[in-house]
């Protein structure tokens, strides 16, 4: 099958959505600039015109309110933030209006907006250019939150998000943009709220999200060589969460490791552990573990981030410990000299 990069898959989803529905519009700072938000919005203005694809002032809160207002009258706006951190300026509109309007007005309004937020890690993005704040949005009833990992999921989930009648926070990890996968042509949808099983095993359940799923896949390849086989569930949707698949897996393996791209305290990964303890207590053979960022702002210097981010090596070590084995991830993985703060040799910054 044809392979596309994650960023190309996003671009294709836009193109399909805008072709099939004239009410879909795309805006945000820089969506029509020469870089096209890491390539994700390139060419859209040329195809669909400046009324439907446009740059905006640096007014995140108003622009979000404008998306909500337009959506109340039948438009399906897709907003893009080149960094999730900028969306924090629009929390009032997202939480007080977008998330509430359907419920608060007795079901008479729908708010079909999609807000893309790009998160990241490495290359010194630092405290305010790489925050993974999915848990904040997951805390808000009325929002849906998705975090695709593969190009295939990115396309199908973006199309589902755009045509969902509820506000959807669409979180893209910058380190996934260059990742390729099989992507069918044409329109297809992935149901929001359905996870994806990446691998099967009886030893342990790993529940992961977004970029951490990539690290988990690498870790599982190494673990297999030591005859350790895990269920790897890529949640894809943070809200609603596919609890059925997670509980089913934990009841089978009895062990749970959750991976998070964000800080551990008050996180999605903590919430998964809480729900599993509540629903699968008698099946648990070991205490659940969580691999997440330390409870501190993201530092900038490469010497500091080296110990801040979680990698395949750390996954191997924690899985090994949970199973009473003695593997050393750092000895088992050869990164071939690739620095820890880039996703691959394609990435040379600056953002």
């Amino acid at each position, binding site marked *: 099958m044809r392979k596309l990069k994650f960023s190309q898959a996003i671009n294709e989803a836009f193109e399909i959505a805008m072709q099939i529905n004239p009410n879909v519009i795309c805006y945000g700072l820089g969506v029509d600039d020469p870089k096209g938000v890491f390539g994700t919005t390139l060419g859209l203005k040329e195809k669909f015109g400046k009324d439907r694809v446009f740059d905006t002032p640096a007014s995140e*809160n108003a622009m979000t309110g404008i998306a909500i207002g337009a959506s109340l009258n039948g438009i399906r706006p897709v907003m893009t933030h080149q960094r999730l951190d900028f969306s924090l300026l629009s929390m009032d509109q997202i939480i007080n209006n977008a998330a509430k309007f359907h419920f608060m007005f007795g079901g008479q309004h729908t708010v079909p907006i999609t807000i893309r937020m790009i998160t990241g890690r490495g290359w010194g993005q630092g405290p305010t250019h790489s925050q993974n704040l999915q848990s904040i949005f997951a805390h808000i009833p009325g929002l849906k939150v998705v975090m695709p990992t593969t190009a295939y999921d990115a396309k199908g989930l973006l199309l589902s998000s755009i045509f969902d009648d509820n506000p959807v926070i669409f979180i893209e990890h910058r380190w996934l943009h260059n990742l390729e996968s099989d992507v069918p042509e044409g329109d297809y949808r992935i149901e929001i709220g359905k996870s994806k099983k990446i691998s099967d095993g009886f030893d342990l359940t790993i529940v992961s999200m977004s970029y951490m799923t990539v690290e988990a896949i690498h870790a599982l390849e190494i673990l297999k060589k030591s005859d350790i086989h895990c269920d790897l569930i890529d949640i894809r949707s943070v809200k609603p969460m596919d609890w059925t698949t997670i509980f089913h897996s934990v009841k089978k393996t009895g062990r749970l490791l959750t991976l998070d791209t964000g800080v551990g305290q008050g996180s999605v990964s903590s919430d998964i552990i809480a729900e599993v303890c509540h629903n699968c207590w008698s099946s648990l053979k070991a205490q659940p573990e969580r691999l997440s960022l330390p409870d501190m702002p993201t530092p900038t210097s490469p010497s500091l981030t080296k110990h801040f981010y979680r990698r395949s090596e750390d996954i191997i070590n924690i899985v090994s410990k949970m199973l009473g084995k003695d593997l050393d991830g750092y000895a088992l993985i050869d990164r071939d000299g690739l620095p820890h703060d880039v996703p691959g040799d394609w990435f040379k910054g600056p953002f």
Partner: protein
Amino acid sequence: MEHTLKINLFKKLFKIRTVEETIADKYTEWEMRCPTHLSTGQEGVAAGVCQALEDDDFVFSSHRSHAHYIAKGGDIRKMIAEIYGKSTGCSAGRGGSMHLIDKSVGFLGSTSIVGGTIPLAAGVALSVKLKNSSQVTCTFFGDAAVEEGVFYETINYAVTNKLPVLFICENNLYSVYSPLSVRQPENRNIFEMVEGIGISVDHGNGNDPWEVFEKSRNAVGKIRELQIPIFLEFSTYRWREHCGPFFDNDIGYRTETEFLHWKEKDPLQFFENMLLEQRVIDESQIQSIKAGIIDEVNEAFQFAHDSDFPDFTGIQNSVYHS
């Protein structure tokens, strides 16, 4: 034509006053169990502006929203039922006094966060433009809303992109108990400051409903013709406390003298006298209009009182549209 307009405007003013004062009377029965911000004294702006709008034009409002809802033609039975928390309320009992809606007359909603609906109006105006419609979208807010960042963001965007929005600032001098003097520089008029952003502005006496109507009609005409946003500031005064049914001139943040000064400028009495002087209407016609409205309002309260409360069962399934 003008005769009918004036009578309709009077009806709006009297209906708002009657609803608000009936709420004040009945609030201490404690059946209306939500924060309630009354519009008594400020009827002139709501009635005058909405009289200048068409039925299919859109309106948003803020926490003090009753007058705007009623002036746009919102169903008062559903409004009172909403304040009573009943299932027959305009928001099915989920919103209360601060979250009113009547889509059938273009009243798209009111919200409680200061400035919160200002960008929504610009968004609806954007959708109107994309659909090549000629509708005008109006948003009402108070003098404190111009202290919010989203106000500047929205005006800037609306001007830059020529969005057909009517921004109405009701300057009633107070934000809760905080006077303008602690919030905005002395001798700086709001409308003049806003004009600096590049939007067309005007200002007027909010307690003269006819002046409000004429300025609004003029603005709405320009918005439709030129596809531009316009900002209007009207001075007015809230008679009762910020939130609740009582008067609060004794607690120290404003004076009885100031209140009486503004009460002298009662927009309802002013307009009633004007219609009588102009012989648009006579005393017996006024009494007949008032009696009809009082009956309608009483019936709305009875309806609200008699309606059922919503059931909690299953309500969690109403968070998302499916």
